[in-house]
């Protein structure tokens, strides 16, 4: 079994898929660069991302698998699961060999099922981030939020926030993956910063009213609770503890 690595990007992965067919390579495992590998380094090769190749694969797969299929492939990759490339490649191989089998609908196929599960996991995290992002207004009029999502969801939440907040500058930063997205009132751009792992915005960088609105929100949060119906288990199920750090109403 040979191992090919790619640069973590969607295009990089699609390039690798192209080359699997280009070199008629049957025994290959595609994985992300820089991840420790238990096997021997035999046959290790780095795939150089090539947007032409990636685009050809993309167009072909789109015809074969449709929008739903492309959506599942993208989400599965964003899961960053070690096995995700294996399952995606299995599905792609099946789709190319037997287009009439409609592999994406075959939930009895282990890889197709796995893709649908990855999609569900990542979709859930995307939805959580759309809910749990908490902006703080900084003195330079940027609404700033930090997140540490389980999966790499920044690329798929950008549209949601761009549609919603068009008249304010905002920045959402992934502290785990050290990059973020910034909206400058015109478009969304990716920003990369290397900080230590601490929260980055100190009190002195926020506008004065920020604390007042935060305290109003905490007050609202506790006032809207019905004590007679207390159900902490359900509460923690919906808002797992790992997200509390950045939630204004849960951390103070």
């Amino acid at each position, binding site marked *: 079994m040979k191992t090919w690595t790619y640069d973590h990007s969607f295009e990089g992965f699609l390039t690798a898929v192209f080359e699997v067919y280009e070199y008629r390579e049957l025994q290959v495992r595609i994985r992300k660069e820089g991840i420790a590998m238990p096997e021997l380094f035999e046959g290790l090769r780095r795939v150089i991302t090539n947007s032409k190749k990636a685009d050809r694969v993309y167009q072909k797969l789109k015809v074969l698998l449709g929008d739903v299929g492309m959506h599942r492939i993208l989400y599965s990759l964003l899961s960053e699961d070690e096995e995700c490339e294996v399952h995606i490649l299995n599905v792609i191989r099946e789709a190319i060999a037997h287009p009439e*089998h*409609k592999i994406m*609908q*075959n*939930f*009895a*196929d282990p890889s197709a*099922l796995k893709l649908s599960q990855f999609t569900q996991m990542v979709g859930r995290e995307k*939805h959580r981030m*759309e*809910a*749990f*992002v*908490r*902006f*703080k*207004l900084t003195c330079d009029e940027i*609404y700033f*939020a930090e997140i540490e999502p389980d999966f790499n969801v920044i690329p798929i939440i950008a549209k949601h926030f761009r*549609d*919603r*907040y*068009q*008249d*304010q500058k905002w920045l959402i930063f992934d502290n785990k993956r050290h990059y973020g997205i910034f909206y400058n009132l015109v478009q969304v751009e990716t920003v990369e910063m290397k900080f230590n792992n601490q929260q980055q915005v100190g009190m002195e960088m926020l506008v004065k*009213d920020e604390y*007042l*609105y935060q*305290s*109003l*929100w905490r*007050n*609202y*949060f506790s*006032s*809207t*609770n*019905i*004590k*007679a*119906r*207390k*159900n*902490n*288990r*359900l*509460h923690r*199920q*919906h*808002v797992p503890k790992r997200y509390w750090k950045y*939630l*204004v*109403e*849960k951390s103070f």
Partner: protein
Amino acid sequence: MNFDRINEKLAILADAAKYDVSCSSSGSKRKNDTKGLGNATGMGICHSYTEDGRCVSLLKILLTNHCIYDCAYCVTRKSNDIKRAAFTIDEVVDLTINFYRRNYIEGLFLSSGIFKNADYTMERLVRIAKKLRLEHNFNGYIHLKSIPGASNELMKEAGLYADRLSINLELPTEEGLKLLAPEKNRADMIQPMNYVKNEIIVYKEEKKLFKSTPKFAPAGQSTQLIIGATPESDLQIIKTADTFYKEYNLKRVYYSGYIPVVANDVRLPSLETQVPVLRENRLYQADWLMRFYGFKADEILNTQNPNLDLEVDPKLGWALRNLQFFPVNIQIASIEMLLRIPGVGVKSAWKIVNARKFTQLKEEHLKKLGIAFNRAKYFMFFNNQFKFINHLNSSDLKSIIVNDTKSKFKDLYSPQLQLF
């Protein structure tokens, strides 16, 4: 702004509004194509959850808790000795905008105690929505309460600025309303509801002809019923809900387990009474069966069985009463029949329909598809065999299933008083 005063008002007026359970922020189609603030398309978002496990999606407040009515079940009733407060229009607007910009909320849920009269109150609610839309270019979600007896002109304006309108029937029957809220009557509640329903139809028709037709309450109407304040049966509740779904095209009926707020009123359960959480849960399950699973109200309950079984969910209850339809052969059964198998939800039913085209479905497939296999296995025939024929014919199938599928939440929802 005087933040201390606002903080105090917010505590009072959020506390008073919390008994309204609706927190939905979905179903609207208001896009942000004005370069403004907010977007209310498609899916709702729960931004947080309170410690009682309920979703926090909207800033849910009363404009004021001054009220001319004295409804026995209500915490803001005139005769109750509590602190009263009122927001100004600008305060509500400012809170909404600032919470929304920080991504705390999906929008505003504005209700109010009734001061002076219906139109006077409704007019203020409408003014807030109008200000948010026109002056602040706000496209987030707005849910306004329709005040019973409000005039058609005001309801029309409300529909143009709000995404959802709702009016609470409060008690499932008119007799219950007479007993606990003698100053109110159902006709006053139905009149604005009926008006809004007709306007929604008119605007939808016009929209087909003219693309520029404005939206009118795009997320529809809803209502709320209080459960357990008066002695109605579940059958009466479900029938009321069913009627309102059909006649007024409601998007949702909410069921709110009565939380005792009054001491010494012989008409109401005592202060020590537990909130009927489990019963409420069963009613929601029944409601879902009617809306998404093709069940009719009188299939779920009938005069012989007027109350939902607290031990098993209503779908399992129906299956146990109608064993002649089982086992269902999942390889060939219609989607309607798949949906009737206890433990199979809407999504997994469609997954079965898709997956069975490719292969003979086996136990391991079904488990991975996400169905509640432990419950479903007694009711379905797969891989050309049915192992549970003896169980299906057994008189204690119900206890077998109940013991087999004990919920980890059982204690929590136990209708019995917890002593320790």
